[in-house]
């Protein structure tokens, strides 16, 4: 079986911060509007949907890139650059943001369009990283086959 994506540190960061602020899961759920069960699963290493992910990140006040133990070679180009910029001691967060905005704009203009997979998905509310990765590949392949069929 191929190696799955690394476990995110998001769950650990969330639990640590929540305990530091002396909040129960229910308190936090009420505060940020993320379902109690979803928060509990995220603390156990599951990946939430984008909206809940953003709410959690916003509460943590942390840049998303730093919360994933992903290999340097993986991920979108701008995300890899962002990780370097935000951790560069010679740059303030504001400097890093300015450079990243410039680079992102250039990248968007010059890079070939990436085929996007968009779906309505009836599934679990959160995913263990391995299942999320398998499902993402599955949806991408299904979309590719349907596109090919359409072209014929």
């Amino acid at each position, binding site marked *: 079986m191929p190696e799955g994506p690394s476990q995110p540190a998001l769950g650990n960061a969330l639990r640590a911060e929540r305990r530091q602020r002396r909040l129960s899961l229910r308190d936090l759920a009420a505060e940020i509007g993320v379902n109690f069960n979803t928060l509990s699963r995220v603390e156990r290493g599951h990946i939430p949907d984008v909206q809940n992910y953003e709410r959690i990140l916003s509460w943590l006040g942390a840049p998303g890139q730093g919360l994933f133990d992903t*290999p340097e070679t993986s991920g979108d180009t701008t995300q890899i650059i962002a990780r370097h910029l935000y951790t560069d001691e010679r740059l303030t967060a504001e400097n890093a943001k300015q450079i990243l905005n410039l680079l992102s704009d250039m990248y968007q203009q010059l890079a070939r369009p990436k085929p996007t997979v968009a779906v309505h*998905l*009836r599934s679990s509310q959160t995913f263990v*990283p*391995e299942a999320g990765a*398998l499902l993402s590949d599955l949806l991408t392949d299904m*979309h590719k086959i349907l596109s090919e069929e359409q072209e014929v």
Partner: protein
Amino acid sequence: MRRGFKAEAERMSSSFRATLGVGDTSKLPLEQAVKTMGAELRSAESLVSLERLREIEQVQPGAFSACTFDMSDHKVIVWNPLSKPARTTSDIAHELSHLLLKHEVKEVQKVGELAFFGCDPDEEQEANWLAGCLLLPRALVLKELRAGHTAEQIADRYEVSSQMANFRIRATGALRQVSSR
């Protein structure tokens, strides 16, 4: 769920059923319903191997039920053949509801190797509710309860899960109406 949606969903179901030529007390012809919406219905097995579907199910049971792709000129609803038939009925009705409600498809995003699936909780709730109305409209539930049928029997007759039948009996308040007579 936004105010007034529940009543709106019953009306929407009734109107859609009328365009299909079926009343509120008949079984929903699901394939015809999907076709009427200009969508195609496919088993995931026709696109990818069963092995891959089993692998996901093994890693996280229930991780994939169904999905809808927007292929620009038409929509494709894909269902998981590993699910039980009654579950599949609900899954397809849920996807059909997204189409009826004109919900936009959500992009799959990747951060590193981690995948994020877009999900709007309000839209999901609406699609769930409308799916129930489409499969078991209030008038149908009332008719069945008056005929003395149980939730299990309703589930069997309309090929839905007993969970769905029980949910609709509660949600429509039909049992109270029948009992009070």
